[in-house]
């Protein structure tokens, strides 16, 4: 009789173990990436700017992502140099002096390109047709900007628009880091069609 009880306990024990195994097989802790075989092949050995496992010993702040050296310009990015300061005087000056570069023409193709960029960055507030009816403004989560065809903006020169995209204006922040200079001019070509509507 003693032997029998023991073996029954064995059944219980093995049952418990197999239960655990069953659960282990379908365990899903989704806050962990799971098992990795040879992790050094998954995580870049080279210093990847957007992925970092430990502090970088070669940079001052330990970040892989390095800011450009001050007062330097990358090749082909001379148009990032903007000679006007973020002041009301230079806003006026930019309006008078700054002209759209010759290679950004007012052709339909350029306007269409401008519209595509505009839809990505501007339309969420300014609205698809520049009537200040973007989804965020319509939901009253962000205050309305003036419409492009309003008395205040319908004659706004291109230079002032470029200045505003670069530095921001009133409640609008700067879009210099998101939109490249050429893209800014293309957006302006599209906005000019909205001013006339």
């Amino acid at each position, binding site marked *: 009789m003693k032997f*029998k009880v023991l073996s*029954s306990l064995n*059944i*219980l024990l*093995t*049952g418990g*173990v*197999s*239960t*655990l*195994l*069953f*659960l*282990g*097989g*379908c*365990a*899903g*802790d*989704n*806050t*962990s*990436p*799971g*098992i990795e*075989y040879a992790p050094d*092949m*998954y*995580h*870049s050995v080279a210093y990847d*700017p*957007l992925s970092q496992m430990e502090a970088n010993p070669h940079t001052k702040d330990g*970040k892989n992502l390095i800011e450009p050296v001050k007062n330097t310009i990358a090749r082909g990015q001379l148009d990032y140099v903007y000679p006007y300061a973020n002041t009301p005087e230079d806003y006026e000056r930019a309006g008078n002096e700054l002209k759209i570069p010759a290679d950004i023409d007012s052709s339909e193709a350029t306007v269409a390109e401008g519209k595509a960029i505009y*839809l*990505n*960055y501007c*339309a*969420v507030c300014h609205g698809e047709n520049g009537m*200040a009816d973007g*989804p*965020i403004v319509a*939901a009253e*989560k*962000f*205050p*309305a*900007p*003036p419409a492009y065809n*309003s008395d*205040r903006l319908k004659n706004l020169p291109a230079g002032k628009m470029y200045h505003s995209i670069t530095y*921001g*204006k*009133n*409640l*609008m*922040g*700067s879009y210099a*880091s*998101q939109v*490249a200079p050429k893209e800014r001019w293309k957006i302006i070509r599209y906005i000019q069609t909205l001013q006339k509507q």
Partner: protein
Amino acid sequence: MKSGSRLILLLTLVLLGMNTLKAADGAALFKANCTACHAVDKQVVGPALKDVHKRRDEAWLLKFIKNSTAVINSGDKYAVDLYNKYNKTQMPAFDYLQDEDIKAIIGYIKEKSEAPAEVAAAPAAGGDAGAENNGGGGIPSATLFWGLAALTGVLILIIFLLIFITTLLVNALREKEAREKNVPTESLKQSMNLMKNKFVATAIVFILVIAGFNYTVKTARAVGVHQGYAPVQPIAFSHKLHAGTNQIQCQTCHTGVEKSKSANIPSTNICMNCHSYVKKESPEIQKLYKAIETGVPVEWIRIHNLPDFVYFNHQQHVKVGGVECQECHGPIEEMEVVYQHSPLTMGWCIDCHRKKEVDLKKNDYYLKIHEKMKGTEEVITVEKLGGLECAKCHY
């Protein structure tokens, strides 16, 4: 008498109607001209305009709104103080507005100032929404999972307990039968051991083998595959709110997606384009402010990671190929917490390259290859353009 009172009623109604019309006009004018810098109940770029009609008289307001620079230059003390207080930011001249327009705007501000209930209700409503957001998910998925796991465990244990009890009972019954029939106990014990070996032992081995197989296969298949990975991020950012409810385009923040290999994690200045105004007081947004003030960046946890030995480029897929973000990343606009939707295994890549048709016609990138392939193939997939070559991704 009756008709007289009716006339008065009618007149009042007309007047009331006119009044609301005026206020509505004021609201539209306020939105079109003022909200870029002003709000009624909070300071934005310029001062909060609540009770402005009590602070200054109408004539001064008219003059200031039409040409604030002239008022400041005339040495008006109040105007100069205001100008200095707001970092010498000049309010543009609204000289194109008629006196009636400005009066309508002032009327609107007056109406808003005198409606305190709405202001008090707003934060309460916000709080409710927040609470709803927190509780909206019901039981957290981790708790649910472990609860179910415990329940399954208990059930399986009960099964084994039942087997245990049955074996005991069967044993007792047999012993009793043996005693009654006077069969020698030795042989009975032997046969019982055999029974145990045959049924119970086989069952145990069978279960163990299945469980082991299940565990091994699942674990082996999941090595290096992060599908479903949803780490807890340092800021409880909701894609459901931003991309879903607010309909912000993916590219608005992930600016690199059409221009480079990576879609980019937005830097804090991109957050600040809205959050310098929106929900500044929220503890989650305050983490952004802290990151900017201290210069210690927000350490977002990367979810989608391809091994170092495979090359992937977002620009090629999104800009050239015209693939929608959701085709790989899943319904991001519905995700409160982002998880990895696709397995990102090689089989998954290859599968899409085999099936995906390439639109050669509207795309300058494929001009040359289109000329070459004209008329040779019915359907041109990525595979036919060399999308299955090893060196396409591994080099």
